[in-house]
């Protein structure tokens, strides 16, 4: 009996195993966390290559046609990793902020991933439910799943959590001074994917606009009226926004995003009360750059026009 017990607790160190992380969804929801944690445990971490034209095309081909764009991209990143990694990490995110719930699509993600990869590829997952379980504890569970030693897990979790905090603060760093001051809101996986949001930021930069991403560093917000984590945070940020400090808001949404279909109307209501102009840009796999540019130029022009009008009147 004791022999069996001993055998089951014998640890095989996770060191030098290769593990893949898709560069989509949870990768952006918890920036730097997963790579740092797994690397600190001594694993070889492979992150799928950044989203490109090819990824988007592949996503359109292999993914369920009614998924939202980020989930389609996830499927493409997963397929890329499945070609050369035997082990892929996909967390089940049930709640990313205390007191909130996550988008239901993220809950089914590891199961969907298992249904889509070849049988030889193993999907490793851990439940992230920050409404009930602190993140550090979930990381410890993940470490145990990978058969790491408790001391190593504690040390890796510490590094990973501070890397997460640093990455979240850095993401929201204001860009260089300019004329108009815009807040860009949206899910982190839309805002921080260079292929999706990069052209928008570049164009705004060229138009002389100081564009700032909404910050996800401070996550203490009440779960009212929205219970979805990211949406609730954005809503509360918009409620505290001062019209004197900001000139406009751009909502980067993705096609078929269920959360944004409800939350988007509430964002617009709050901003209408504050008399802050807001534009929603819906990203999909067919979006043409020229169309996005035209809409951004028109939006910026109309706000400049409005400002000039207001100045001449005074």
């Amino acid at each position, binding site marked *: 009996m004791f022999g069996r017990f001993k055998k089951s607790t014998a640890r095989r160190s996770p060191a030098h195993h290769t593990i893949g992380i898709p560069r989509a969804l949870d990768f952006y929801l918890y920036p730097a966390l997963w790579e740092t944690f797994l690397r600190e445990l001594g694993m070889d971490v492979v992150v799928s290559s950044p989203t490109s034209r090819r990824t988007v095309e592949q996503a359109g081909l292999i993914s369920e046609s009614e998924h939202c764009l980020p989930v389609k991209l996830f499927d493409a990143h997963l397929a890329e990793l499945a070609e050369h990694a035997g082990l892929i990490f996909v967390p089940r995110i049930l709640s990313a902020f205390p007191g909130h719930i996550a988008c*239901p699509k993220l809950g*089914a993600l590891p199961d969907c991933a298992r249904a*889509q990869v070849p049988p030889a590829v193993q999907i490793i997952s851990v439940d992230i439910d920050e409404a009930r379980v602190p993140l550090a504890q979930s990381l410890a569970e993940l470490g145990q799943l990978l058969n790491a030693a408790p001391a190593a897990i504690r040390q890796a979790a510490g590094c990973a959590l501070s890397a997460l905090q640093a990455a979240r603060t850095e993401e929201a760093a204001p860009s260089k001074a300019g004329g108009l001051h815009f807040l860009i809101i949206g899910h982190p996986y839309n805002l921080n994917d260079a292929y999706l949001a990069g052209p928008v930021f570049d164009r705004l930069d060229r138009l002389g606009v100081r564009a700032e991403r909404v910050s996800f560093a401070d996550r203490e917000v009440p779960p009212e009226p929205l*219970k979805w984590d990211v949406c609730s945070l954005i809503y509360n940020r918009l409620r505290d926004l001062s019209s004197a400090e900001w000139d406009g808001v751009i909502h980067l949404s993705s*096609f078929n995003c*269920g959360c*944004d279909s*409800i939350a988007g*109307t509430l964002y617009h209501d709050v901003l209408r009360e504050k008399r802050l102009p807001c534009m929603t840009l819906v990203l999909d796999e067919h979006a043409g750059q020229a169309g996005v540019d035209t809409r951004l130029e028109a939006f910026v022009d109309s706000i400049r026009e409005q400002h000039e009008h207001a100045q001449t009147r005074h």
Partner: protein
Amino acid sequence: MPRLAIEPWGNYSLALAASVECLKVIPWTHTCTTPEILRLGVAASPEFSCLSFKVTTGHFIKAAMEGVEYGVMVNSRGPCRLRYYRMLQQKLLAERGFNLFIFGLGYDGIKPPLIRHFDPKMKDFLDCCFRARLKVVTIDELEKAAWTRRAVEQRPGDTTRVMNRCLQALDQARTVPEIRAFRKTIPARFHAVAANPDRRPLKVALLGEATILRNSFLNHNIEELLGGLGAEVRNFFLLGDEMRNIFNVGLWSKNGRAAMRKLAKPYLGTSVGGHALTSVAHTIRCAQEGYDGVIHVAPAGCMPEVSIRPILRKISQDLDIPVFECSFDEHTSQVGMVTRLEAFVDVLAERRRKPGSQVI
């Protein structure tokens, strides 16, 4: 007497209308949506919201236009959009200058605001609930009888005619003895429909999102279409079963939550939201019980149902059961539906004929 708009629940609307009698209100409801209601809902709703939202919003707007004072809408605590329906509908109504107040139902204490507001006598209330439950169970029975008979009827449309007559009779039955007496006549009524004894109908399961499954206008009469093609339908949304789940009475039953979770476990480790988990579990069960095929029904872009589609595809491969995924929005056409269903039923019939096929 004030009027109360109840969201449409297909044939179950009759039972729900009976359940509010004790509140001293006149129920305002439909068993089926009209094109006008859909148009109103689509015009008012956010572009990317699901068809279920658009249609319930349309109902409340139509009710408000007719001067109805109150409405009732189910509450939800899950991660699906249903959670925000009532809040958003109330906002959309207010923006259009309507005064309809929507009560939530569920998850708000033992005495919900709806009951607190109208404050019926305890005896009347319990009486009414009992009667409504009896009606719901009777409608379950009617539906089941119609699915079986329609697949073998000799003259197309006979079963539907009997069904409609039954629903009218049930609507007129006001007391418990009357409903019980009517319930006893159900088998005989459907037996009277001339049947073709040689036909061996295909068994097709309908599962997915409840609003679309129950609203024959939105699903383009999918049950009748399939019945007409000679398929015996089993719609997995029966309000009687569902009610047991809501009150956790059927905790240990075959369709109880625990049983569903256990069945779905190898493929899905979380409840996702909405009816996603039961969709997965029922697909597995249908494969085990020898159904010929499964039709997964959802509004286009439904958050929980769409997210499990890759899993359904995997189950279809692993357990060798055809799954037809069907999404509905306001542009879905009746003709398109007919063509796709015909093709699907042809595939199923062909599988039966295939030599060595395990399906009998």
